[in-house]
């Protein structure tokens, strides 16, 4: 077994997801099938091969640090589920 139900619960916590018992079983099963198939990558000797994180051979794109107009605050808040004055509003974080 590549990944246990306990691992799946752990990864779900890292990813801020939550599953029912049934879903945990299903995901454990499916992720095992997928990861077992993907084990074929381990057959390949990749010693000394540089990883590619990108397809384009790009270096950093620099520009002058000029002040330019950006999205207005009220525009940025328009899609927020909750906001107050110029802030996004979230559930209480600190007790007191």
């Amino acid at each position: 077994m590549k990944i246990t139900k306990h691992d799946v619960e752990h990864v779900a916590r890292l990813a801020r997801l939550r599953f029912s018992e049934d879903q945990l079983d299903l995901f454990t099963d499916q992720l095992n099938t997928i990861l077992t198939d993907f084990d074929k990558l381990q057959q390949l000797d990749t010693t000394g091969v540089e990883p590619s994180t990108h397809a384009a051979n790009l270096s950093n794109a620099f520009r002058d640090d000029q002040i330019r107009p950006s999205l207005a605050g009220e525009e940025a808040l328009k899609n927020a589920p909750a906001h107050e004055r110029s802030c996004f509003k979230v559930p209480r974080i600190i007790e007191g």
Partner: protein
Amino acid sequence: MTKALSQMTIHELHELLKKRAVSSREITQAVYQRIDAVEPRVHAYITLTRETALKQAAAADEKTKQGTIQPLTGIPLAIKDLLCTAGIRTTCGSKILEQFIPPYNATVISRLKEQRAVLVGKTNMDEFAMGSSTETSYFGPTANPWDLERVPGGSSGGSAAAVAADECIAALGTDTGGSIRQPAACCGIVGMKPTYGRVSRFGLIAFASSLDQIGPMTKDVTDTALLMNYISGHDPRDSTAVNREVPDYTRALIPDAKGLRLGVPREYFGASGIDPEVEKAVWEALRILERQGATLTEITLPHTEYAVAAYYLIAPAEASSNLARYDGVKYGYRHPKETDLRDMYEITRAEGFGAEVKRRIMLGTYALSAGYYDAYYRKASQVRTLIRQDFEEAFKACDLIVTPTAPTPPFRQGEKLNNPLQMYLSDIFTIPANLAGLPGISIPCGLSSRGLPIGLQIIGNLFEEEKIIHGAYCLEQNSDWHLTKPSLA
């Protein structure tokens, strides 16, 4: 038989508009009449923008009267619903963005607006572009116009179906692992994924940022060349959009194939899971190109069999990071009940995302997590290098690589939905080009014995879209698959 306006191509309509033989308003109305007739069966769209479209058409007609018509002026286009459109909701096929109204336009949308193209609506897609069948959309599946019980491919299945069913003149899609080319093949249309960096991704809702690319989905190769002319180019708002001159792609519309060296990769033929009818149709197309002056060479891309595994670790890893932003705070859905912060995050995401998106977030988070990073993400990134090197080597012996686009004609709805790994294998021939950043096109090359479309893929070297257009145009001009239409009976 004369064609209805909705059946025409961009270049045909442009000629009529220029002569003032027809108005954009008439074309736009014809497209909506077609939508009214077939959309209940096809379900290509998530959102239709009829009122603003008719206004845009009227404004385009005004410009035309003033003599300032451009190639896309007044042409009704459909847009995949993950490209941000200011003031028009953009859902990404997800419940979590069901009510999201972007405050700005994607760069490609701004460019189409400068041309005064008409926006018909936002097309259906697999949720967050994760899927190969358009079945994972929160808004329900799209049907394939050729056979309503089959999938249109995915993830840009709504755009592909809209073009095939004449519910628009052309469309934009996005392609992360085949999401333009595979649905184009399934729906019998032309679809191109440009080189990574050719088209700005600003305003594209990110899935896997090192792989995502926007491209045209059209009724013929000429329209693909035209759209490429206007969506390509540098953008200061996307640091990966390369600052490189945009050629006039219509100059590559050359009807013969003299001098083109076509590579036929042995790993893409006779592979397990490939339908013999698909292989036969591709070979017949290759013979046509050969008769038009192309030479065929067998080539090898030895790491092909590892591409799906590498992709389905890299893309989910990037997705798990990109989709972390959907947390119920800045925009999108939030679980409505009063909770603490952690519960709010977790319940919001559990309710807002569908099963496939969660599966990929899980796969990606796992591949990046402590203890597994080297075995999965790093290993996959190294294999990505090997796949790039395969192509570099292959392009020493050929100009273009010709393969099937998808291993089978479009499959039945529901057939692969409960078997993720089977679904992932639908992308087996399209994924390598994304991993290597290469441009690719799918064009129609035949019908199966059941009357379902088959697509041929042409992959080119980096920034060699012109050669691809050349090869594709030659095949199109010497066959008539692009003129065959679904009956939608």
